[in-house]
């Protein structure tokens, strides 16, 4: 005898909503890959896709979300590393004495921030 209740609606395991969100996050990771947010969107896309499967199999939109997020993550990482290298190079080229002189010119005399011109007795936190 079959005990299955055919009137009961079939409940799919996993969350289709999270799977779709993962797909959208994957697209966002590509769109924002040139800014720093691309990496965050990509990681969230991967995590949402993995969490959306519940105790069942991973859904198609979640799979696509993972693919897009991985591409977004790779582009985002390349952009991030190249910007860091560029900023690092620019910083190493800077003339620090010039920057300090400018910073001392901008600050008012009673600012309380120590500089070469103002005598200081320690820092208060």
């Amino acid at each position, binding site marked *: 005898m079959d005990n299955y209740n055919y009137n009961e609606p079939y409940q799919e395991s*996993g969350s289709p909503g999270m799977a779709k969100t993962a797909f959208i996050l994957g697209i966002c990771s590509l769109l924002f890959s040139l800014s720093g947010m691309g990496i965050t969107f990509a*990681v969230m896309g991967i*995590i949402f896709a993995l*969490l959306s499967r*519940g105790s069942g199999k991973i859904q198609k939109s979640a799979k696509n979300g993972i693919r897009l997020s991985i591409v977004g993550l790779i582009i985002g990482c390349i952009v991030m590393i190249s910007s860091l290298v560029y900023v690092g190079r620019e910083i190493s080229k800077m003339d620090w004495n010039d920057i300090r002189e400018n910073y001392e010119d901008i600050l008012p005399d009673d600012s309380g921030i120590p500089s070469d011109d103002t005598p*200081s007795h320690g820092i208060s936190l």
Partner: protein
Amino acid sequence: MKQSKYLKSEAREALIGNYGIYIGTYMIFSLISLCVTMFIYWYLLRSMSTFSAISGIIIAFLFNVLLSLLGAGIWVSSLSVSRRQPIAVGNLFYAFTHHSDRFLIVETIKGLIRMVFTIVPLVIYTSYIFGKNENLFTNPTLQDILGFALNYMSGLLLILGIGGLVTFLILLPFSMSTFLLIDNENLGAIDSLRTSSRMMKGNFKSYFYLSFLSFLGFYVLGGIGGSIPMLWVTPYHHVTIAGFYRQLNHEL
């Protein structure tokens, strides 16, 4: 491995539809923790004296014990989610309203161990490095400040990482004590620690794998993503551990 896979899939399924309220509760807990930690840090760095260092350790310890009581509320939510029961933000204050003395004793013992391996080395390191570089603040250059901050932060992370791992390994036998206190209102504090170490006997490896190694990838990924994805990873981690407790308790 098989057990870990099963528990994780159960946790994922149980969490569907519960992420919002769990994340909300966790964010309130994190906000309170952050405010308390910042206050401790401000108090510790207010003056670089031995008195401030010692009183800083004591204050840090007391606040950590109180925060752990709030943390027990998070475990109440994770256990409820794992059992497919409804959860509420009010669960956060569960330990304060259900024989708080038992939670207080357990958290004090755990807090003492945690303090010895994380807070004490951290305070000693902070006092030492700020004392050593006191001259730096009289006439600082941007390069010096950046170099100091980088050195200080790397040392801080190293101490927290090693201390955290050592504490985790020492507290491994007592990992189930909070769940036991939540489930049995008549169970005493010391009895919960004893029962927990009895339950954990022979399960250290599987717990270490489930709680630490199997989530390492998620935590690394969350770190790369700027910690925002951790809001979804943390509930998953917590509910998986609650599932592990239920398995040891022959519920699963």
